[in-house]
């Protein structure tokens, strides 16, 4: 492998003496999609913040994050790397229109004038496949659904053409259909681009549909890292195996025994009529 994007060496993070991350060491390769998998308390969000240099003031960081992918200079959050969070409501400005919000990044970091920045914003919003762009450009965040807001947050992150996009549980507040759409979007956005994606999630199956590499965190430690397919096929750690075992999809065995007595479907003609007369009003 060529020069990695980032090298993490013995990274630890503690909040007021409580350890959140403990001695992480691994490389993030350039390009590609790395999944960070962990449950609550695994330290995965602390990792996202440490990587983007956005740890809160009471956090103590030790160890090193090297950035050979950025010619060894410290990348700037918001320009060289962007962080998208679970709740876009907290990262979008509630009193700024969607168009300006996205244009702001392009203007500030690419040095575009407002008209060009707005045009760029429209392009970006089209790339994240938001509908009715003309109306949306002038809408405010609260007028959008959760999935749409998350798309805006991604568009705003892409505005400065970052080399690294960190997505921290960005689908966990969304329903499954919207989640699948966002994951498809991320897959398409990163497919033909040099941008590296770090996708942080508790859902190993979701990660497997998107990422090529996978790192499993447990209680602040890295328990396993490797190519996605290899980790899934031959988990090297009991914890990873537990995670895979806990996954439920449409092929999993059902938890209830097959019941004998038939359950009559609802069919009550008198109600149907009642509905139609009610529906006329």
């Amino acid at each position, binding site marked *: 492998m060529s020069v990695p994007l980032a090298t993490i060496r013995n990274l630890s993070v503690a909040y007021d003496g409580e350890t959140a991350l403990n001695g992480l060491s691994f490389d993030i390769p350039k390009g590609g999609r790395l999944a960070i998998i962990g449950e609550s308390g695994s330290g995965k969000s602390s990792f996202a913040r440490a990587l983007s240099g956005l740890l809160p003031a009471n956090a103590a960081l030790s160890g090193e994050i090297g950035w050979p992918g950025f010619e060894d200079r410290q990348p700037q959050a918001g320009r060289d790397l962007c962080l998208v969070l679970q709740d876009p409501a907290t990262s979008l400005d509630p009193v700024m229109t969607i168009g300006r919000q996205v244009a702001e990044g392009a203007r500030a970091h690419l040095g575009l004038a407002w008209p060009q920045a707005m045009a760029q914003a429209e392009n970006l919003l089209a790339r994240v496949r938001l509908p009715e762009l003309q109306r949306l450009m002038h809408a405010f965040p609260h007028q959008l659904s959760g999935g749409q807001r998350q798309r805006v947050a991604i568009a705003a992150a892409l505005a400065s053409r970052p080399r690294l996009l960190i997505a921290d549980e960005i689908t966990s507040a969304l329903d*499954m259909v919207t989640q699948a759409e966002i*994951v498809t979007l991320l897959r398409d956005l990163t497919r033909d681009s040099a941008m590296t994606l770090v996708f942080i999630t508790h*859902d*190993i199956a979701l990660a*497997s549909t998107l990422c090529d590499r996978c790192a499993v965190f447990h209680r602040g430690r890295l328990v396993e890292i490797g190519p996605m397919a290899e980790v899934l*096929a031959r988990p090297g750690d009991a914890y990873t195996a537990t995670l895979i075992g806990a996954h439920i999809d449409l092929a999993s065995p059902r938890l*209830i025994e097959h019941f004998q007595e038939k359950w009559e479907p*609802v069919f009550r003609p008198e109600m149907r009529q009642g509905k139609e007369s009610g529906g006329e009003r």
Partner: protein
Amino acid sequence: MSEPLLRVSGLSKTFASGGRRVLAVSDVSFDLPRGRTLGLVGASGSGKSTLARLVLRLIAPDAGAVHFQGRDWLSLRGIRLRQARAKMQMVFQDPASAFNPRATAESALADALRIHAIVPPEDRDAEIERLMDRVGLWPALRVRPVGALSGGQRQRLAIARALATRPKLIVLDEALSALDLGIRRQILDLLVSLQRGEGLSYLFISHDLAVVRAIAHRIAVMDAGHIVEQGETETVTGAPQTSITKALIAAVPRLIT
């Protein structure tokens, strides 16, 4: 069995929001027999939670009827409604907000036991212990403030509170969505074993079709306030009839190995 435990017919609710009228639940009908689980799936905003609250009588419907245990559930008032509520309980999505911030595990369960005089006061302690044991909470957690419990422990406590009044039906509104996968699996197993042991019925609401499929005998798919498809679990997931159901099936992430 002739009469189902819960029969919902033509239930509708419209909210007025900022001058606009939003049809949250529209002409919804289903039956839920004893000892069975009906899974209710749909995207966010499809009206699932409103339906749950209508069934629980936390909000009043505009039209429709609900029969619970053979009685007209919507006509109950005052003390008779409060007493009848013992038989229909609910578990919310976010266990952090489902308990009074001042509550401890013990006080939350004691309230439920006291209101419905489930056991004589002198047996209340033993009953609390039994309930906590049933959901896998060890006795040392009794005096913990609910805020000091983990998410999984809180959700177990919420289930214990729902069980305390000896219900026939528990409405679970996205009860597992906020939990880690491992804990989600444990709670699913717990729900299934409680159903086998006590003949409980569940109205299990989730946006995750895979989880619903694992636990529900029947599935109803909701979209824009309507039930668009309803049937045996294997039929709905195996041979979906509507584009909504197909989209829900396609959205379930599969382990790609």
